[in-house]
């Protein structure tokens, strides 16, 4: 990061290579849309380049990057606030990946739709800890909340997910 602060293009390219997959996965899971996720990740790295001087050495780089992506996702939600959420527009994370079976693909789609139905803070908490493998401290830092508040968000989010999935299809999902 110090090299990027000095305007080192090669160091920036290395940073992109190291964190692109993780941040893209985060944005896609937050938004469930490839094009929007691409835009958010692109904007994240542009901001990193332009505001590298704002990075504090005591902050972990991945946590800082997740914070920027998270804030951009929140801005995105604010922009589309009021628009009707069309759950049929939710895309499967990677439609090109061969699904082992039609049923598995259906389950994956239902889980994604259920995730989109969670409040943004609960969704963020679950995605950061569960999918992004951030520690509880790091995830709490990204969301600017305490660890106990993070745990409360995740517990409520998981309970709501169960309810939504059970309501969607009891046969497919079995007894949660």
């Amino acid at each position, binding site marked *: 990061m110090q090299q990027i602060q000095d305007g080192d*293009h090669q160091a*920036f*390219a290395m940073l*992109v*290579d190291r964190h*692109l*997959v993780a941040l*893209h*996965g985060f944005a*896609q*899971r937050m938004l469930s849309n*490839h094009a929007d*996720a*691409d835009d958010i*990740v*692109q904007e994240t*790295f*542009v901001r990193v*380049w*332009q505001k590298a001087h704002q990075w504090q050495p005591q902050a972990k780089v991945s946590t800082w990057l997740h914070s920027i992506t998270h804030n951009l996702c929140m801005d995105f939600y604010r922009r589309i606030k009021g628009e009707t959420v069309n759950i049929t527009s939710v895309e*499967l*994370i*990677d439609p090109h*990946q061969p*699904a082992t079976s039609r049923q*598995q693909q259906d*389950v*994956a789609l239902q*889980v*994604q739709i259920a*995730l989109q139905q969670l409040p943004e803070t609960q969704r963020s908490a*679950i995605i950061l*800890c*569960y*999918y992004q*493998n951030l*520690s*509880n401290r790091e995830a709490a830092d990204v969301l600017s909340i305490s*660890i106990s508040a*993070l*745990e*409360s968000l*995740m*517990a409520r989010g*998981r*309970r709501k*997910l*169960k309810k939504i*999935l059970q309501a969607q299809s009891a046969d497919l*999902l*079995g*007894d*949660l």
Partner: protein
Amino acid sequence: MNLQNNIHKYKMTLERFSQLVDAYGSEPKRWPLEERATALKLLEKSIEAHRLQQSASNLDHLLDSVPISVPTAMLRQRILAQRYKEPVQDAWQWFIHWLMGTTVREHFLRPAFALMIPLLFGIFLGFNLADYPTDESILFEEEVSLLALYPME
């Protein structure tokens, strides 16, 4: 050593274990590092803890079913190309950017300079108005001269 000390600080109860799996799910690798060892010990000897873990694992399997995404190579190219572009600013953004400066010294000096401009203008205007003739006799002569349509001597 620090980790060992931390582990001893956390006493695992069934209630806390339930909170852990409610929040983090059934996989021990996702539990907080400082509580993991004590939680696993409880799991070994408690049937109820085992039941709670099993219950949480069903949702975990569903969450795991969502495949991981891979960004395209084009996105990487776009990001690397985009960084060379300067952000587009309108006149107002440019002014605010200039006004705030980039160093701590400029943060104070530039707004102070901007505030000085109307102040100096006011002082300038004040001095000029003060030079304007206010003697009533001269003003009266000027008025008569204008009405008589001939220049005043």
